C-alpha cells in the first residue's frame, strides 16, 4: 500500500512504475484498440451517411406541387357542334384544351389582383404538360360538365416543383429555357395567394413512368407490379425446386462424386456475378427460346436461377438442424425414409426454409444487373398490365430497373424520383427482412 512517492529508492525500478518499454507497449495496445473502434465507427458512419442521404434526397419525391385552378370549360371550344356527342368531343385534341388554361390564368390574375408582367402563355407553362390531357380526360368522362367552371388540381411543372422544394433557384435557371425568373415570381405570388401548394403525392407510389419531358408525373406503380410478378415467378419456381434439391442432397444423396459435383456447383453458382446470369437469360430465354424481351417472366426465370443457390443453402442448413432422433423415431415406428422426411423433418424445418426463402426473395428484388441485359430498362412502362398472362409476357420494368432508368436520364428532377424509388425499394426489403427475423424468432426451435 505504498505510494510511489514514498517508496525509498531501494529498487531501481518498481513494478508499479511503468518503464518506457511498457508504456510503449501500452500505447500500442491503446492505438490498436482505437484502430478497431475507428474501423467500426467508419463502417457505421458510412451506413449513417448512406441512409441520411437516401432519406434526405428521396422524401421530396413523395411530395408534389399542385396548382389549383378554376377552368371554364368553354362549350364553344370543346363541343363546337353543341350536341354533347362523345365522339365529337373526343375529336378535340389536347391542343384544343391549352387555350382554356391560358384563359383560366388570366381570369385568376384578374380576380386575385396579382400584378405580373408575364404573358398568359408563360403562366400556363408553370403547369405540367399533362394538364391539358388531364382536362381532356375529365371532359370525356363528364361531358355534361362542358360550359361549367370546374376547379382542377394540376401538377406543377418539374421546375416549379423543384423551386418549391429548393432544388431550383433563380441562379440555377440562368440558362434554362423552360422557366424564367419572372415565372418564379408569379409562382411566389400564387403560393402566397394559396393556389400553389405542396402535398403528399400518392401517384408517385401508384402511378406509371412518364416520358423525359414530364418528370413530375413519373411514378413507381407499374414497375412495382413488374417486380411483384417476377417475385411470384421466383417463389413458384425457386421454392419447390430448391426444397426438392436440398432434400435430395441432405437426406438421400449417396456420398459419391456426382453428389460432390452438385455440391461444388451450387456453392459456386452462389458466387457467380449476377450479370453472368443476365447473359444466360439473354442467350437461352430470349435468343434461343424467343421469349419476349423485357418480359417479367424472363426476369423471373433469371432471378430464379440466381436465387436457387441461396434457397438451397439455407434449406440444407435448416434440414441439417433437425436432430437425427426425429428421423430415427419416425423410422422406428415403421415410416419409410420418404415418409420420415416429408411428414416429420420437413415440417420441423419449414420456418428455417421460409426465412431463407424470404431472404433470397429480398435479394432477388434488389437485383438490377441481369435485368439490364434482358431489356427491362430503356422504355417507359406506362400501362399496368390488364391480366396475369399479359403481366408475365408484356414488357414491363422492375423497381431497381426503373430506378436505374431514372438515374440515367438527364433531368435532375428524375434524380429525386430515383432516390424516392430507392426509399420504396428499401421499405420492401426492410419489411421482408423483418418478417424473416420475426419468423425466425417466433418459430425457430432449438434442440
Amino acid at each position: 500500500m505504498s505510494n510511489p512517492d514514498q517508496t525509498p529508492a531501494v529498487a531501481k525500478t518498481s513494478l508499479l512504475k511503468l518503464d518506457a518499454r511498457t508504456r510503449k507497449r501500452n500505447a500500442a495496445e491503446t492505438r490498436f484498440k482505437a484502430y478497431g473502434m475507428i474501423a467500426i465507427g467508419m463502417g457505421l458512419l458510412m451506413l449513417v451517411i448512406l441512409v441520411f442521404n437516401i432519406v434526405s434526397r428521396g422524401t421530396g419525391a413523395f411530395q408534389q406541387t399542385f396548382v389549383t385552378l378554376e377552368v371554364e370549360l368553354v362549350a364553344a371550344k370543346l363541343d363546337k357542334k353543341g350536341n354533347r356527342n362523345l365522339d365529337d368531343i373526343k375529336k378535340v385534341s389536347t391542343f384544343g384544351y391549352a387555350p382554356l388554361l391560358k384563359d383560366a390564368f388570366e381570369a385568376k390574375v384578374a380576380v386575385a389582383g396579382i400584378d405580373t408582367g408575364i404573358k398568359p402563355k408563360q403562366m400556363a407553362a408553370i403547369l405540367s404538360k399533362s394538364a391539358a390531357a388531364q382536362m381532356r380526360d375529365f371532359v370525356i368522362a363528364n361531358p355534361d360538365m362542358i360550359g361549367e367552371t370546374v376547379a382542377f388540381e394540376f401538377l406543377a411543372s418539374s421546375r416549379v416543383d423543384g423551386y418549391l422544394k429548393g432544388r431550383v433557384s433563380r441562379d440555377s435557371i440562368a440558362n434554362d429555357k423552360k422557366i424564367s425568373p419572372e415565372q418564379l415570381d408569379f409562382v411566389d405570388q400564387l403560393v402566397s395567394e394559396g393556389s400553389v401548394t405542396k402535398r403528399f403525392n400518392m401517384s408517385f407510389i401508384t402511378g406509371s413512368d412518364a416520358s423525359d419531358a414530364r418528370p413530375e408525373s413519373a411514378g413507381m406503380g407499374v414497375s412495382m407490379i413488374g417486380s411483384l410478378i417476377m417475385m411470384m415467378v421466383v417463389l413458384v419456381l425457386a421454392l419447390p425446386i430448391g426444397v426438392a434439391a436440398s432434400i435430395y442432397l441432405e437426406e438421400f444423396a449417396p456420398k459419391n462424386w456426382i453428389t460432390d459435383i452438385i455440391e461444388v456447383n451450387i456453392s459456386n453458382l452462389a458466387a457467380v456475378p449476377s450479370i453472368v446470369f443476365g447473359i444466360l437469360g439473354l442467350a437461352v430465354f430470349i435468343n434461343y427460346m424467343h421469349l419476349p424481351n423485357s418480359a417479367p417472366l424472363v426476369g423471373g426465370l433469371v432471378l430464379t436461377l440466381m436465387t436457387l443457390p441461396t434457397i438451397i443453402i439455407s434449406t440444407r442448413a435448416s434440414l441439417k438442424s433437425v436432430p437425427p432422433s426425429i428421423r430415427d423415431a419416425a423410422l422406428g415406428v415403421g415410416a419409410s425414409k420418404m415418409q420420415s422426411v416429408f411428414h416429420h423433418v420437413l415440417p420441423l424445418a419449414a420456418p428455417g426454409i421460409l426465412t431463407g426463402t424470404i431472404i433470397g426473395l429480398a435479394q432477388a428484388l434488389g437485383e438490377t444487373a441481369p435485368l439490364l441485359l434482358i431489356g427491362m430498362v430503356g422504355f417507359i412502362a406506362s400501362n399496368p398490365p390488364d391480366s396475369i398472362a399479359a403481366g408475365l409476357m408484356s414488357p414491363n420494368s422492375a423497381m431497381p430497373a426503373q430506378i436505374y432508368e431514372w438515374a440515367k436520364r438527364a433531368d435532375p428532377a428524375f434524380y429525386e424520383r430515383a432516390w424516392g424509388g430507392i426509399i420504396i425499394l428499401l421499405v420492401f426489403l426492410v419489411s421482408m427482412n423483418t418478417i424473416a427475423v420475426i419468423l425466425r424468432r417466433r418459430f425457430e426451435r432449438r434442440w
Partner: protein
Amino acid sequence: MWWPLNGTDNGTLRMSITAILFLAVLALCVLGYSLARNRALAGAGGDRRLLHSLPTYYGTNAAMFTAVPALGVMVIWLLAQPMMIETRVQGMIPASFIDEGSSIGLVMNDVRRVADGLDLAVKSGGLSADDARKLSANSDVRGMLADRGVALGSDVKPEVLAAAQTYRSAAATGRMWMVVVVMGLALIGFAIAVSLSKPDFRARNVVERGILALLMVAASLAILTTLGIVLSMLFESINFFRVHPASDFFFGGSWAPNFRGDSDLSILPLLWGTLYISLIALTVAVPIGLFAAIYLSEYAGPKLRAVAKPLLEILAGIPTIVYGLFALLTVGPALVRVFGRGDEGLLGVEWMSGATAVLTAGLVMGIMLIPFVSSLSDDIINAVPQAMRDGSLGLGATPSETIRQVVLPAALPGIVGAILLAASRAIGETMIVVLGAGAIAKFSANPLEAMTTITTRIVSQLTGDTDFSSPETLVAFALGLTLFVLTLGLNVFALIIVRKYREQYD
C-alpha cells in the same frame, strides 16, 4: 415466335393449345387419382388393412404415371421443336440468297416475322387459312401484313415466303404431333397405373422411387444452370473468335467498338479498369473490415457486438443499384467538389472533370465490401483456438501483441481467402461501375479519370439493338466468359485456402 406463352395475339392462340393440353393432362391426373384409389380399395373389398400401401399411394401412383412422362415429353418437345424447325427451314434458304452484309440469322428473322404475320392474319379473320397457304410472292404480302401491324423491313422475297410457309406448316404439324404424343403418353400411363391398382401392388414403393427421381432432377438443375451458363457463353464466344481474331481480344491494346465494323476489341484496357477499381475498393474495405472484425471478435463486449455486427451487415443487404446511385449522385459530385472545379473547388485544382471516376466507383464499392470482409474475417478469427490466445497472454503479451503475433498469423490463410472472395465480388460487381465508373477504356494510373470495366462493357454491348452476328455484340459473351472464369478461379482458390486452414484446427 413458336413459344407457347407468347405476348402476341397469335401466341395466345398457341398458348391456349399448350395450356389446354396441360390442363387436360392435369384433369386426367385427378381422374386417375380417384379411379386408382377406389379401384384398389374395391379390390380389397373396402378394407384398407388388406392393401399393401395406404389408399392415397395408389392414387398418387396413378397421377404420377399420367402426368410425369407426358409433361416431361411436353417440355422437351417445346424446347426441341423450334431448333428442329429452324434447321429444316434454314436448309431451304440457298446460300446465294444471303446478301452481302446480311446473315442467315437476319433472313431467318424475316422468315419468322412473315410466318407470324400470316398466323396473325389468319387469326384476325383477314385471311382464310387456305388463302394463307396458297399465298404467292406476287401478291403484296408486305402491304397486307403492314395492315395487320406486322412491319417488315423489305418486300417479301419468294424464297422467304416459301420458307415462311414451310415454317408455318412445320410448326403446325409439330404442335399437332405434340398433342397426340403427349395425350397418348398420358393415356397409356393412366391405363397402366389404374390397371395396376390392386391390393397387393406395392404402390408406396413405386411412388417413393418416383419422388426420389424428381428430387434428383431438381438437384441436378444446379448442374444444368452451370452448363447453360458455360455453353451459352462458350458457343457465342466461339462465334466471336470466328469473326474477330483472338489475338486482338487477349493481347490487343485498345477498346474501340465501331458499329461499322473494324473494331478494336481488346479486353486488356477493360481488365485494367476492373482491377484498378477493385484494388481501390479493397484498399478501402480490407483495413476497415479487418480491424472491425478484430475489434468485434477480440475486444467488443456482447452488447456492442450484438448491435454493431448486424448494423454493419445491413451494408451488405443494400441493393447495388442504391450504391450505384450513391456513387453517381453523392460521392462523385463530392469528389468533384474536392478535386475539381479549379478555383471554386476545395483544393483549388482541376484534376477531376466528371462525377464518374475510378475513385468514385472504388470508394463506393469499398463501402459495399466492408461487411463482406468483416463477417468472413470475424468467423475465421473466432475459429482460432482459444488456447493459442491464452498461451500468448499467459506469457505476458498484451492483447494487441497476441492478436498481431499469434491470432492473425494463425488466421492469415483464412483472411486471405476472405479477401480473395471480396475481390471476386468486386470484379463481378456491375451496377456501381455502370453508374459510377464511366465509359472510357484506357490505361491510366490516375484514379480521378473515368475508366471502364468488363461488366460495364457487357451491359453496354448487350443493351439496345443487338445483332448476334456482329463482333461488337458477340464480344460481350467472350467478356462474360472471361469474367466467369476469373471469378470462378478466385472463388475456388479462396475456398481451397479456407478449407485447408479449417482442417488444421479441427
